């Protein structure tokens, strides 16, 4: 039995190792400085880069964070404070449903309500769709992290003459902060590679654009466009793009790991 679980544990890591190995083999050759500084060439021509898509992805992540983090953290604080209230129970349930919602569904809705009314695709619509995906993730991790702070700590602050508000901010929130930051970064890593919602919102852009009101390029979209084209060189660019995307996610995950170090390990009550 233990032998089988051992095999399963090894197999569990294989997909990632295989993907990284394959990406390096196929894409590393295309990761020249040009890839980061040049615009994409028309499909069929060799050379060029994905500078606009890399910047576009960072802008989309930033917009999504501006939308998703405050709402997610705020909702998480509420849930932690009002554990059993009817509203909290409802919000928690709906948040879990939203978390499990297929991203393509979210994309269609974003198109219907964010793109169609204003009459055009935009980076803002893409960022908001991604932000909506972040909200439930951030909400739940924030709630969990706040709940990990022992009640005894809250009581100690109150007994010292802290006001309720001050206790929440400078003791409870501060103690939970590393965990909340980690949760936020995990959420960012999760949405960084999302493609489906962007198809209907940010659309993609062959040109340089940093405007929130215009369609914007994004790594997943650019990878998609190149991968379905019939040209070998475009495929190479797609592999390289995938490699960069994975590296962005990896870096964010590493920062999250770092932020978690030395986190408060409570005494268990």
């Amino acid at each position, binding site marked *: 039995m233990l032998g089988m679980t051992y095999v399963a544990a090894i197999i569990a890591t294989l997909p990632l190792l295989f993907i990284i190995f394959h990406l390096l083999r196929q894409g590393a050759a295309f990761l020249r400085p040009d890839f980061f500084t040049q615009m994409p060439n028309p499909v069929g021509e060799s050379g060029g880069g994905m500078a606009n898509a890399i910047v576009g992805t960072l802008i989309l992540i930033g917009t999504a964070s501006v939308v998703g983090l405050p709402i997610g953290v705020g909702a998480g604080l509420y849930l932690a404070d009002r554990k059993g209230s009817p509203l909290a129970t409802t919000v928690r349930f709906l948040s879990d449903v939203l978390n499990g919602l297929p991203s393509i569904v979210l994309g269609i809705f974003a198109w219907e309500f964010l793109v169609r009314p204003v009459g055009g695709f935009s980076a803002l619509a893409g960022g908001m769709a991604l932000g909506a995906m972040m909200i439930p993730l951030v909400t739940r991790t924030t709630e969990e992290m706040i709940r990990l702070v*022992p009640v*005894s*700590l809250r*009581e*100690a*602050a*109150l*007994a*010292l*003459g*802290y*006001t309720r508000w*001050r206790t929440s901010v400078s*003791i409870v929130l*501060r*103690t939970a*902060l590393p965990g909340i930051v980690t949760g936020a970064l995990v959420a960012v890593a999760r949405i960084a590679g999302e493609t489906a919602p962007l198809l209907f919102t940010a659309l993609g852009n062959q040109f340089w654009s940093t405007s929130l009101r215009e369609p914007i390029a994004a790594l997943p979209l650019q990878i998609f466009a190149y991968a379905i084209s019939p040209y070998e060189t475009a495929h190479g660019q797609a592999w390289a793009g995938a490699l960069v995307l994975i590296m962005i996610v990896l870096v964010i995950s590493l920062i999250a790991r770092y932020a978690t170090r030395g986190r*408060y390990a*409570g*005494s268990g*009550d």
Partner: protein
Amino acid sequence: MPAVETELPRATPAVTMRAAESAAPTGTETILSTRRLNAWFGRARVLRNVTLDFHDRAVTAVIGPSGCGKSTLLRCLNRMHETVPGAIVEGDVILGETSIYKGGLNAIAVRRHIGMVFQRPTPFPTMSIRDNVAAGLRIRIGRGPSRSETDEIVQGALERAGLWDEVKDRLRDHALGLSGGQQQRLCIARALATKPRVLLLDEPTASLDPLSTQTIEELVYELRQSIAVVIVTHNMQQAARVSNRTAFMLAGEMIEVAPTGTLFTNPRDSRTESYVTGRFG
């Protein structure tokens, strides 16, 4: 049946081992008292007409079986009981001349005058040793103490808590690096730093090893020279070792309060006698 406050002569009987040896003068002046105090958790009544005086510069122990309401009594004294949802308090507590429930002081002010230390050590994990002790100073209304004033207060509080010599070279270190017993003394220092008039200890040694327990007991014994201490404990030997007066509670009622030696050797109430001789609880 409300308990009657018993004001027995202060002469300490020989049985109160260390109280008898104490050269330090301990007070008989009342600093804190409860008046027909009742408390509920929702519908469950946990305190029944408790009327009791606590003396200044003296240690009062509150003993009784689990669930008798002794911790609730303590938490009513600094208005911590009401922080629990569904908790209700009736009656009054008088600090000096001021009623803390019927006007005069708000809950925040009450807690600055009456410090509290809990069962488990509760150092703030994001703060250094120094910042933990200073935590209560910064939240004072108006201008807080300057850096050098703070350093002085921190040192004074740590000295009173008997922790200064152990931590003076690492005040900037993480508070969680201290042992359990040191953490508890840190919490006592933190409570003392705001110069409270009364210190409440809620089973302060329940989570500590015997050696740390002894250190804390010696500390409590020392503190009686400068402050009123109320200690809740389920350990009768501890009550006998550290307190001047002991109050016995049962099912939310104050059964008997007397000088510690008297209560343990010559209790007036048969229920007290049953408890202190180990027949229940």
